[in-house]
């Protein structure tokens, strides 16, 4: 009955109800069918709902900020072209994040081997082994959040992305494992190490006494 009601409302109103379903990450099969049949309006809805999320993933994964816009556009074109490959065993959002994650990984790998690409990891800016961040300055400015975010952004890619995905919308361990293509146990280990690292760093920097 619920399925019938959902189908009916989607057919009748299209816009708003579909949006709600996407927001709840409870993608109705009809919506996926519309995407697969090439419905441009359905794709535009999908894009509207996920543009900030995908933009954030790319922005936090790739250090070359000049490339972020192009990568985001490439990812959405990839989603559009490959939607037929979405087998509906996972959530649509999980599949999209995986496409985004893999696309960024490809770019990072290529950028590392291409001297013309200005790949500049933050690790080189923040020497985490020493206290290169000035805790007094930042404490005075009351920028504890900014320091914490900077520490997250300076972590190695896998730790950083596990942490980001975990806090995005409390994506499950299982989904993170699927997005990043690593076992669930590894996800937990990365998350644990990342949090321990952050706590120790914040204490060393004098933010928590």
């Amino acid at each position, binding site marked *: 009955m619920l399925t019938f009601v959902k189908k009916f409302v989607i057919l009748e109103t299209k816009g708003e109800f579909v949006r709600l379903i996407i927001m709840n990450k409870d993608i109705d099969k009809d919506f996926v069918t519309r995407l697969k049949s090439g419905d441009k309006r359905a794709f535009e809805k999908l894009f509207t709902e996920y*543009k900030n999320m995908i933009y954030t993933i790319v922005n936090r994964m790739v250090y070359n900020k000049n490339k972020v816009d192009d990568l*985001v556009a490439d990812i959405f074109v990839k989603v*559009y072209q490959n939607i037929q490959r979405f087998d509906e065993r996972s959530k649509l959002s999980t599949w999209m994040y995986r496409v985004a994650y893999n696309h960024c990984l490809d770019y990072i790998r290529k950028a590392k081997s291409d001297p013309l690409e200005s790949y500049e990891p933050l690790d080189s800016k923040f020497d985490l082994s020493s206290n290169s961040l000035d805790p007094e300055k930042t404490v005075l400015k009351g920028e504890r959040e900014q320091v914490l975010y900077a520490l997250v952004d300076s972590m190695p890619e896998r730790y950083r992305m596990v*942490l980001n995905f975990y806090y995005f919308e409390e994506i499950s361990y299982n989904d993170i494992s699927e997005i990043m293509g690593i076992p669930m146990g590894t996800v*937990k280990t990365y998350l644990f190490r990342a949090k321990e690292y*952050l706590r120790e760093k914040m204490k060393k920097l004098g933010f928590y006494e």
Partner: protein
Amino acid sequence: MNECREYTQMIVRFFSKDLTGEEEKILNEHLEICEKCKKEFILQEQMEFILQKRPLSEAPVAVIEKVLSIIPERKEVYARPYFNWRVAVSIAYGIAAWVIAALSFHLAHQPGGIGAFIERMSTTMTHFSLTLESPSFIIGTVIYSLVVSLSTLFIFWRSQLRQVSAV
């Protein structure tokens, strides 16, 4: 000291929802007696809060325009006929309209039938001095039939139209 190290690790795992019920109980009991670990707990809680509230980046308008312009237009083509609620409605609508029209026409020409009764009772028809044979009435009936036919065809056409191929 080493013992507290273990509890600190448990605190991290607690906020990752990675503790068993038994472990949670042990941690709670320890926190009640250990001030140092209680501080660690508060510290971790504050960090979790900050990380959770980190805002998403807003996709710039340029990106939005770029993506929407890149996505190729798809032309609408006729797919193989299929049955859905629109088809059902258009067929039912068409049949009902023609049945009503035929019945009205038949009854109108029966002596003492419902048509004559409508003609006598209808204030509109009386007002405009219309009879069932008058040209205005016949033209009106033709227009009604055309509107019904065309709207039925339109609903049916839309029901068969699907976006299936990219240009």
